[in-house]
C-alpha cells in the first residue's frame, strides 16, 4: 500500500497539510493469542491530526490492533506481537522502548467508562502526577482545568472537583476519562468504542469533543456505528477476520469503496 502517494493527492489546502504526515505506521503486524492468529499482515499509515476510524464485524481484531499501538497487549500474558509499528519513525517494539513511557505518549479511552474511585480532580491529576508534569500545586490545578475544558466537562464539574468521579453520569464519566487521557498531553489518543455505553445525547457530546480534539491530537477510534465513523473520521480502516481489508478516505469508503467486503459490511450484509 502506498499511502504517501494517496495523501498528497487529496490534500488541497496548506492548512490541512499538517495532516499529511504519517504519525503511526504499521508494517506486517501479526498478533497471536497463544496459538490463535488474531491479526494478519496488517500494514497501515495513520496520519497526524486526523481521526481514523476502525470498523469491521465483531471479533475481527479492531481492539487487538488498537491495543498494539500503545502496547497494552503487553499486559496480556498470552499475547504476542510481531512486525513493526513505529510512531514518528521510532519503532515502539524496540527493546529499548519503555512501554510505560510510550503509554504516556499514546493515551487510551476504553469502551466502558472506568474512572478511578477517586475525586474528579484526582482522576485527572493522576497522569500528570505519576509523570511529574506539574512542579507546583497551581500547575497541577491548571493542567486539570485545561484538560477538563478540552474534554468539555469543565462547566459541569468545576464546582464539585472534590466529589467522586464515579458519581458522574455515564457520559460525563466517559468525558472524564478523555480528560484524564488528555491531561498527560499525549500525541495519539486511542478510543475503543468510546460511545457504546452512552445514550445518544452523551454520544453527540463525545463526538463533538473528538472533533475538537483533532486539532491537537492524532485520534484512532474503533466503532460499530457506520454513522459515527462517517461523522467523526477523515480516514476509515475496515478489518475482517484479522486482515485489514481496506483503508481509505471516509467519504470514499462510504460512497464507493474499493473492496467488495467493505461494500457488503457497510450495506449491512454481514457483521
Amino acid at each position: 500500500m502506498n499511502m504517501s502517494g494517496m495523501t498528497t493527492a487529496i490534500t488541497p489546502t496548506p492548512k490541512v497539510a499538517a495532516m499529511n504526515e504519517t504519525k503511526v505506521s504499521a508494517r506486517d503486524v501479526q498478533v497471536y493469542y497463544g496459538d490463535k492468529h488474531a491479526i494478519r499482515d496488517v500494514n497501515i499509515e495513520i496520519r497526524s491530526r486526523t481521526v481514523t476510524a476502525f470498523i469491521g464485524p465483531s471479533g475481527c481484531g479492531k481492539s487487538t490492533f488498537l491495543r498494539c499501538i500503545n502496547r497494552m497487549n503487553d499486559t496480556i500474558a498470552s499475547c504476542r506481537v510481531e512486525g513493526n509499528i513505529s510512531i514518528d519513525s521510532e519503532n515502539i517494539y524496540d527493546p529499548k522502548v519503555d512501554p510505560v513511557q510510550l503509554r504516556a505518549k499514546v493515551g487510551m479511552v476504553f469502551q466502558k467508562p472506568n474512572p478511578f474511585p477517586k475525586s474528579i480532580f484526582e482522576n485527572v491529576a493522576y497522569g500528570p502526577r505519576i509523570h511529574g508534569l506539574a512542579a507546583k500545586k497551581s500547575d497541577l490545578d491548571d493542567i486539570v482545568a485545561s484538560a477538563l475544558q478540552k474534554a468539555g466537562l469543565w462547566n459541569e464539574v468545576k464546582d464539585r472537583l472534590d466529589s467522586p468521579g464515579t458519581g458522574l453520569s455515564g457520559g460525563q464519566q466517559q468525558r472524564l476519562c478523555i480528560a484524564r487521557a488528555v491531561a498527560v498531553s499525549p500525541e495519539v489518543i486511542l478510543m475503543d468504542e468510546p460511545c457504546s455505553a452512552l445514550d445518544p445525547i452523551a454520544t453527540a457530546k463525545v463526538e463533538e469533543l473528538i472533533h475538537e480534539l483533532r486539532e491537537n491530537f492524532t485520534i484512532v477510534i474503533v466503532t460499530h456505528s457506520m454513522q459515527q465513523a462517517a461523522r467523526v473520521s477523515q480516514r476509515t480502516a475496515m478489518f475482517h477476520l484479522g486482515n485489514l481489508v481496506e483503508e481509505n478516505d471516509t467519504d470514499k469508503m462510504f460512497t464507493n469503496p474499493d473492496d467488495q467486503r467493505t461494500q457488503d459490511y457497510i450495506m449491512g450484509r454481514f457483521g
Partner: protein
Amino acid sequence: MSVGLIFLVVLVLAAAGYFVGRARALSLSAQSGRKLHSLPSYYGQTVALFIAVPAFFVLIAWLFIQPIVIDSRVNGMVPDSVIPDGGARSLVISDVRRIANGLDAVLSRDAIDESALTDGSIDFSSIRGRLADVGVALVGDVPTEVFEAAKAYRQGAKFGNMMMTVAVLLVAIAFGAWSYTWIRPDMRARNISETFIKALLIASSTVAILTTAGIVGSLVFETINFFKMYPASDFFFSTVWNPQFRGGSDLGIWPLLWGTLYISLIALLVAVPIGLMIAIYLAEYASKAVRSVAKPMIEVLAGIPTIVYGLFALITVGPFLRDYFAQPMGLGSSSSSVLTAGLVMGIMIIPFVSSLSDDIINAVPQSLRDGSYGLGATQSETIKKVILPAALPGVVGAILLAASRAIGETMIVVLGAGAAAKLDLNPFEAMTTVTVKIVSQLTGDTEFASPETLVAFALGLTLFVITLGLNVVALYIVRKYREQYE
C-alpha cells in the same frame, strides 16, 4: 421411641404425605376438570410441610420442657438431710440422673423384670455395687430417698417419652390429614409452600439471633453477680491481678488487657505487612503456575492447630529470642515472652490477611488496571494508587478479622508468653492475656460462687465488648470510605 426414631417416622410420614397430596390434587383436578392453580408437586409439598413442621416444632419444645418438669418434681423428693455437708444439691440431683440411667443397664444385664423395681421382690440394698458393675461409679452409698427419686425420675422420663411420641405423631397425622382434606384444585399451594419456606428461613435466623442474645445475656447475668461481690472500680482500674482462692484477691483487668493488646499488636505488626505483600504478589505479579502452588501452601498455615504453633513458640522461638536477643541485650532471661507469642501468632494469622486480601484485590475490576496502565503508570504505581485504595475497605475488614483472631487466641499465649499477669513495656518479659486467665480461673472448679471464678465472665464480657467495638469501627471505616468513592 427414641428421638431419632420419631424424627425418622415423621420424615417418612412427610414423604408419604407428599405423594398422597400430589396424587389427590391430580385426581381432583381430573374429576372436576378444573386446572390446578399450582404444579402438582406443590400440593404434595404443602401436605409434607404440614406434617413435618408442626411435628418437629412440638418435638423440640417437648425436649426442652420435659427435663425441666421432671427435674423440679425429683427435686422435691430429695430432702435436705441426704445432701452431704459442704456438698451441693445439684450434685445429688445429678447422681439421681445417673442412677436412673444406670438402672436400665442393670435391669437388662441381670435380666430383671421391670416390675421388680416397684414390688420389692429383689433386694436393691446392693444397688451401688450393681451400678458400678455397669459403669456408673458413685461416691457413697445410695440413700433410700435418692434411690426413690431416681426411680421416679426414670418413671417420669419413660412416661414423658411415651407421651412425646404420641403427641408428635398425633400432631403430624392431624395436620397432615387436615391439609390433605383441604386440597382443592384452586388452592394456592405454591403460595402456601412459599410462606412455609419463608417462615422456616426466618425461624433459622431467629435461632441464631436468640443464641447470641442468650450468650450475651448469660455473660451479663454472671458479670452482674461478680460485681455484687467485687467492686467494679477495682476491676476496671486496679493494675494488680492476684487471685487468691482463700479470698482477698486483687482482680484488676489492666495487666491482662495490656498483655492482650501488646501481643495482638505485635502479631498484627508481623502479619499485616507480610500478609499484604503476599496478597499483592499473588494477585498482581505471580504467574498462574506460581499462584496455584503458593496460595494453598500459605493457606496450610491457617490449618495448623494452634497448639502446634504453641509448641513451636515454646521450644524454638522462645529460647531463640532469649539466647540471641534478650540475654545479650540484658533485657531478661525468660524464654516465655510477649515477643515470642506475638511473633508466632503473627505467623499464624498471615494467611487470614493474605488470603482475604488476595481475593479482595482480585475483585478490583480489570478496567481500573487498564485505565491506569493506559495512562503510562507502572505496575507498582497502579497497585499503590489505584488498586489498594479501591480494595481498602475489604483489606481493613481482613485486618480486623485477623485482629479478633489474635485477641481471642489462647494456646499460643499459654505456651509462648506464659501465665504471669504483668504490666510491663519490655517485650522480652513474660505476660499473659484475658483468654488465658479465663481458662485458668475456671479450670478445676465448677462452682460459680466466688469472685475468683465469676471474674471469668466479667473478663469474657470485656473481651466481647472489645471485639464488638472493633467490628463497629471497621464498619464505620468501610462505610465512610464508600461514601467518599461511590
